[in-house]
Structure formats: structure tokens, C-alpha cells
């Protein structure tokens, strides 16, 4: 397990995605195939069910160390992770066990059906033969998440780097139906168990933020204008009866949105459409905050399905019954999208993006300013002659957000409130990336619900690194969208910028720290309108 242990150390020590990819690619280059297969299974949630209950592991650890339960729990709440707590509390190893990853996993699979006594003997022997880091990994292999920021996308990029196989094809391969027992590593990455042609996505066409006056765009009748919904951009790929849903981040998210699969199963045509995955309830688009509750869940419960139903708003059509129509004009693609949608009685949760009717440019600012009321982020302006580009191209697709003044930043300090709220951490300091580190950009107090504040306070309690008086330095992990009224260069601030009236727009639980703004991208807001 040394190689796997080294890999985990290498990944957890960096928050640079490239370094993680490098470490994973190195593992793929050097580890035995069976180990690689297990690594992919573990990182994609395809591991066998937990063979030993956590309560038993806790009990055995207390028995070995002689610690009272309350002290065990106190330790657990400081560490915040059971597998790690156990690894830190157990006494020094007395021997040395050296099994490879797949040997451990095979043993653990077999353990599931054994008696509690056999399980105990096995776990105790393992604990006594592994050092602290290996012991932590062993505990994680039994169950629990590694929480080291390896997304499926990162894993796939590392596999692509190692194998030279297209990343999106690999994404379909590792997400598809397979099991460690009936597939070799080679077969898995070559995708022998899938039909990639059925899922292949197109690169998303992206828009720049509008950086000129509206009348500089030319004639209003050459443009279509629609709402810029605040959800997750997605591509619905339907070919040969199979439906695949890709997110903007090029992750396959099909299983997260069963409603969409069901809704589009009613279409007999094949197609690829681009649109927005949204939480839609009683015909209203819900806030992104609500949609977040549905993201990255392994199991979608009935309760959640009812509470946050998912819908889709279609913007564009890229493929029509097998024909790639991306080079056709926006107007023509839109026409084909309408034809497709008119052929069916649409389920309630599937919408066609509404085209905003307007005669002159000066009607748009007011429409845009009302966007927030319907939970839209602003407007999209697309030239009627534009083709569906791969990626970003300046000139014919523009986004015109209601409030362009938002940044994604990470919390680095938390401070207790005063008076009634002194038991909670209510005041936060946020930072964005600068070179390899972070730089403070804003302090903000308001904008969160009491429930969120309670949750964050508990998190701060567990994740404080340093303290000075009422202030805690915390691990830079929680990402927030910070909204503000204005921004200017400032010599007085270390970051070089000053934000006016910063406030927390929302807690971005979906965003990893790697994706927060950089000080350069923040400074760019100063010149844009």
C-alpha cells in the first residue's frame, strides 16, 4: 500500500489541480493494473459496501487505548474525520504489513460476510501492522471519503494524460456500468463496456461579459435576447435511445437528474441540446441555493425529489437526428429546436427558452433590471447569424449580468459576533488567489441565514488553525460568492483593491477552492461597466 499511501500524501499536500493530475498520472504509470482499477473504483464511488460498522471500529479503538468515550468524541470533533481520529489515537504499530491496494480490497470485500470476532481480529491485526498514514488509508478503504479534492474530472484528466485517450470518452467509461470483478484496467479505459458514440458531447459555446454599449452591437433585429438562468449549464445527449447529461464542467451527471432522463425519454427523436439545468417548482425557477441541494448526491431521496424538482430550459440545438448542425446560424438552430419541441406535449419541467421581444436597445436595461425577481442572472445576447463555437469567441455571444459585481472568494478568518450572537461566528474575512497564495479582499457580515451561520460556526470550531482573541484563522475551504456595489484600486489595501459594501451573496458549497477568483480577475472588474 506504500505507493497508494504516497499518492494520497502527494495529492493532499497540494491544492493545485495540475499537481494532483501529475501525481495520479505517475501512479497510473507505475502501479499494477489491478491496483489502478481499484483506485478508479474508489474515486468514482464504486467501492464495495462498508464491511465493518464505524461503531465497532470506535469501540475497538477505545478498548485498545483505554480512553473514555467522551474523550474519544472530543478528539473526533477536533479532527473532524473518524478514520483519521482512529489513526492518530491508536498506539505505535508493532509489526509491518505490506499488501497492495487490490489485496487489501479483496480482503475487505471478503470480510463483509464474516463474524464480528473475525472482523475484529482482522482490523486489529491491520492496525498493528500499519504506520499512521497507512492506517488512515486502511480506515478509509473500509469506508468514508478521502476528501482530497479529486473530482471525476481530475481523475479523468490524469487518465487521459497517462493513456492518451480522449478525456470525455474516459469520463463516460469510468462513469458507465462496470465492476472491478469483470473488467481489466485496459478494457475499462478503452471503454469496451460502453458505446461512447452514444454519449459524446460537444464543447460548450461560451459568452464574454458585455464590454460595450448596446447600440454598438448594431441593429436590434439581428439579435436574439433571452434570460441568463442561474443554474447549471448542461448538454442533453440523446442517441439510439440512450440519454446522457453532461455538465459545463464536462462531467457526466445523468444519474443526478432522473426527472430529466424521464422527461426526455418521451422524445422519440435523437438530438443534442444545450440549456440550463434548473430547480423548477410550480412553474417558478428556484434559487441556485435550492438547486445546490441536488448536486453531487449519490442517492436522490424521494423527499428531495419532491422538495427540489429539477427542470431544464433549452437554449440551443447542436445535433438533430444525427446531423451536427453547429455551423448553421443561431436562427436556424433555434428554428429546429422549436420544431423539435412543438412535436411533443412538453412535460411541465421542460421549457423552451423564451425569446424577449424588443424593438430598440433602450428597452433592454429595464428588462434586465427585473431579471433578479424571476431568479435570472441577467440577459444573454446572441447574434442571429452566429454558429455554435467551441469555447469562447468574442463578438456574437454576450452575457449581460444584472450585477456583474460578484466574486468567488474563500473564507480565511471568522470572528465571533457581539452580544446575543457572541456564541456564533458571524463576521468573516475572505480572500482570493494571488500567485500561489491568498490575499484578503473583503470582510462581510450579512447575507447568510441563521441556519447557515450555525453550520459555519460549527465548522469554524472544528477547523480553526490559529486564534487571536475572538478571531479564528480557518482552513481555506469554504467558498462564498461575494457581491458588492463598487470596486476601485486602493493603495491602502494589501490586495490593491477596495470593495464597496461587500456582502455574502451565497455560500457556494459546490465550488472547490481551486475555482475561486484570482486578484487579477477581480481587478478586471474595475474597468468593465
Amino acid at each position: 500500500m506504500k505507493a497508494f499511501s504516497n499518492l494520497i500524501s502527494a495529492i493532499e499536500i497540494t491544492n493545485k489541480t495540475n499537481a494532483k493530475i501529475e501525481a495520479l498520472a505517475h501512479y497510473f504509470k507505475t502501479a499494477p493494473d489491478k491496483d489502478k482499477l481499484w483506485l478508479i473504483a474508489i474515486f468514482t464511488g464504486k467501492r464495495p459496501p462498508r464491511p465493518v460498522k464505524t461503531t465497532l471500529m470506535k469501540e475497538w479503538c477505545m478498548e485498545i487505548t483505554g480512553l473514555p468515550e467522551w474523550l474519544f468524541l472530543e478528539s473526533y470533533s477536533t479532527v473532524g474525520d473518524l478514520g483519521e481520529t482512529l489513526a492518530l489515537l491508536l498506539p505505535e504499530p508493532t509489526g509491518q504489513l505490506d499488501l497492495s491496494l487490490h489485496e487489501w480490497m479483496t480482503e475487505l470485500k471478503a470480510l463483509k460476510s464474516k463474524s464480528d470476532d473475525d472482523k475484529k481480529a482482522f482490523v486489529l491485526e491491520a492496525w498493528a501492522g500499519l504506520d499512521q498514514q497507512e492506517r488512515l488509508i486502511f480506515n478509509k478503504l473500509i469506508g468514508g471519503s478521502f476528501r482530497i479534492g479529486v473530482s471525476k474530472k481530475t481523475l479523468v484528466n490524469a487518465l487521459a494524460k497517462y493513456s492518451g485517450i480522449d478525456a470525455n470518452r474516459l469520463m463516460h467509461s469510468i462513469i458507465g456500468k462496470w465492476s472491478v470483478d469483470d473488467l481489466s484496467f485496459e478494457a475499462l479505459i478503452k471503454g469496451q463496456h460502453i458505446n461512447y458514440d452514444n454519449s459524446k458531447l460537444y464543447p460548450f459555446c461560451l459568452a464574454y461579459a458585455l464590454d460595450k454599449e448596446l447600440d454598438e452591437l448594431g441593429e436590434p433585429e439581428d439579435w436574439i435576447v433571452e434570460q441568463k438562468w442561474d443554474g447549471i449549464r448542461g448538454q442533453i445527449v440523446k442517441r439510439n435511445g440512450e440519454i446522457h447529461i453532461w455538465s459545463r464542467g464536462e462531467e457526466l451527471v445523468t444519474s443526478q437528474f432522473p426527472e430529466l432522463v424521464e422527461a426526455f425519454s418521451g422524445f422519440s427523436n435523437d438530438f443534442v441540446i444545450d440549456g440550463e439545468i434548473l430547480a423548477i417548482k410550480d412553474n417558478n425557477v428556484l434559487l441556485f441555493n435550492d438547486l445546490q441541494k441536488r448536486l453531487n448526491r449519490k442517492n436522490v431521496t424521494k423527499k428531495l425529489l419532491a422538495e427540489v424538482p429539477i427542470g431544464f430550459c433549452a437554449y440551443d440545438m447542436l445535433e438533430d437526428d444525427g446531423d451536427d448542425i453547429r455551423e448553421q446560424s443561431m436562427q436556424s438552430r433555434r428554428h429546429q429546436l422549436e420544431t423539435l419541441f412543438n412535436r411533443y406535449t412538453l412535460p411541465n419541467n421542460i421549457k423552451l427558452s423564451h425569446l424577449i421581444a424588443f424593438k430598440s436597445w433602450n428597452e433592454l436595461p429595464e428588462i434586465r433590471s427585473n431579471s433578479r425577481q424571476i431568479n435570472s442572472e441577467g440577459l444573454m445576447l446572441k447574434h442571429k447569424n452566429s454558429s455554435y463555437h467551441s469555447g469562447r469567441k468574442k463578438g456574437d455571444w454576450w452575457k449581460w449580468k444584472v450585477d456583474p459585481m460578484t466574486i468567488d472568494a474563500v473564507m480565511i478568518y471568522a470572528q465571533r459576533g457581539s452580544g446575543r450572537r457572541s456564541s456564533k461566528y458571524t463576521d468573516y474575512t475572505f480572500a482570493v488567489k494571488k500567485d500561489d497564495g491568498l490575499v484578503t479582499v473583503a470582510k462581510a457580515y450579512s447575507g447568510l441565514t441563521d441556519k447557515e451561520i450555525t453550520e459555519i460556526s460549527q465548522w469554524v470550531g472544528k477547523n480553526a488553525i490559529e486564534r487571536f482573541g475572538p478571531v479564528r484563522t480557518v482552513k481555506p475551504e469554504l467558498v462564498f460568492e461575494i457581491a458588492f456595489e463598487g470596486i476601485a484600486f486602493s493603495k491602502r489595501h494589501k490586495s490593491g483593491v477596495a470593495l464597496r459594501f461587500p456582502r455574502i451573496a451565497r455560500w457556494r458549497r459546490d465550488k472547490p477552492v481551486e475555482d475561486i477568483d484570482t486578484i487579477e480577475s477581480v481587478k478586471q472588474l474595475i474597468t468593465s461597466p
Partner: protein
Amino acid sequence: MYCQQGKFYLDPWSKVDHAIISHGHADHARWGMKHYLCHTDSKAILKQRLGKDLSIETMPYNKPRTINGVAVSFHPAGHVIGSAQIRLEYKGRVEVFSGDYKTQPDFITTPFEPVKCHSFITESTFGLPIYRWKSEDAIQKELHNWIGYNQSQNRTSVFVGYSLGKAQRIMSLIDGVDEVFVHRSIHNLNEAIASSGYKIPKTQLLTADFNKKDVEGKLIIVPPAMLDSRMFKRIPNAATAICSGWMQIRGNRRWRAADAGFAVSDHADWDGLISAIKATEAEEVYVTHGSQATFSRYLNEMSIEAYELKTEYGEEELANSETKTADA
């Protein structure tokens, strides 16, 4: 903490006439006392940190002096250079104030000596069983491996640790591997310490306008306050390691995009706290600094009479950026 009979204070927070100081960290040695009494090796440190004109008297370890009828003596605390436990004896009753201490021996600090007493005032910064340090030799091996790896990648090894204590400890751990450069705040302390005759490893000053070529691939020690500074950014190909007991927990190691975190602490670990307390044979134990509630509860369950003592040690609120974070 006030000693009524002796009419002096131990590590006081407000300005008093007579202060006995356990060691030079900012949450123990404060500015503004009329007279200071500290260990011989702490004198230069206090002067360097608090001002040249302090009225300071010193005492070596294990040499009692009587103040207003109270026998006062210093005993090695193993925490930082010059750190002392303060022993007070009056009419046969002995109290020991630990200040901060570390039981595990290192390569530079006078090793901790337990002192028998009736009542013991202990710190508890790392008063949870998850904190157990590796031996000094094992830590040294880890640091040397890390430096070796960095040098194979042409990277400069930068250690982050507090100027007093941690910096000298790191110096002792990496001495002889390659040239070591230290930030000015560390350099000034080093000079003060060396001037009083204390032997510490040789280092060079990292000047504000250092030449990148001179330090590339070498070893550098800086205090945490430097982490975001322009000077820090200028270090070529830096690999950064934070050295602190908090690094024992995996999540903390990812802090501030550091490349590594080493659990190197100046404080006693869990086993150290317990063995030290047992060795004092104290009838009652007062717990300060950190995990008071947890640790005193545990002691009581082990049939050692213990009480929580609310102090402000560890909760350093000085505006001074170099010292504003707790020494760990």
C-alpha cells in the same frame, strides 16, 4: 498570577512592579513592568523584544532566591531557550507554575526536569490524545528527506515557524545540511541569544534585497507573518513547510497552500503532559492554556484533583503582527 506573600506576579498581563517571567513568548513576557526577574538565558531575549532599558534581574536553574519569605527557583521547561518552570516554596508548601513546557528532549533547549510539588499549574495547549509527537530523531529524518527531495527538484526549502523557539529548533534540526538563511526577526533574536553565550547553529541573514542566486536551493526560515509578504514571494522555487503542532491534523496541513506541514511543537504532547503531571506527584493540578476543560476532566477521572484556570495565555491579542498568533 499573583503571589500574595511574595508580593510579585508570574507572567502578568497588566503593568505591575515585580514580574517573574517564565519565558520570552509574547503571551508571557509583556511590556511595562517596573522590575523583571527571568532565567539567565531569557534576559537578552526580553531586552531584544521589549526594550533595552528594562530593569531585569536573572537567576540560573535550580538556584533558589528568597523574596519576601518565599523561596523562588527556576527549573528547565524544555519549551524554548531560557524557558523556566517557576517553583515557589513557603512554609513547606510547594507550588510550581509550568509556564509552557515540552517534555521531549530536542537538540537545543535545556531538557525539561519534573519538579515535585503540592500544587502544579500546567499548560494544556495540546491536551488531547490525538497529539503525540515523533521523536526528535524521526522529525530530523523527515525534514532531511524533505530537503533532499526539494534539492533534487531545484527547489528552495522554506520553513515557517515562530521567531523565538521554533526557529532555533528548526536550525538545530537542519544544521549542517546546507546554508541556512533566516529572516531579520529571527536573526536579531539569534544575535541576542548568542551574545549571552548560548550556543546556536550558524545562520545567515536573509536581507530584504537578497540575491535570488544566493538562496536558490538553500534553506530558509521565516516567521508566519512573512507568508504573504513581497520578500517571501521573491524566494525562487520555494517549497514551503509549516512547522507547528497543529500540523498533526491532516486538514491543517493544507493551510495556505503550503507544500508540507510538520508536527514540530514547543509544547508537551498528550503523553508528555500526563507523565509530567504524574512526576510532580502534585495533590492538585490547575490547568491553563488550551484544552482546560477536557484535560482537567480527564485528570479528575484518573483521580488527580484538577481545576480549570481561566487565563489569557495562548489567547494573544497583541496588535504586533509578529507575535499576534499563538506560539505552537
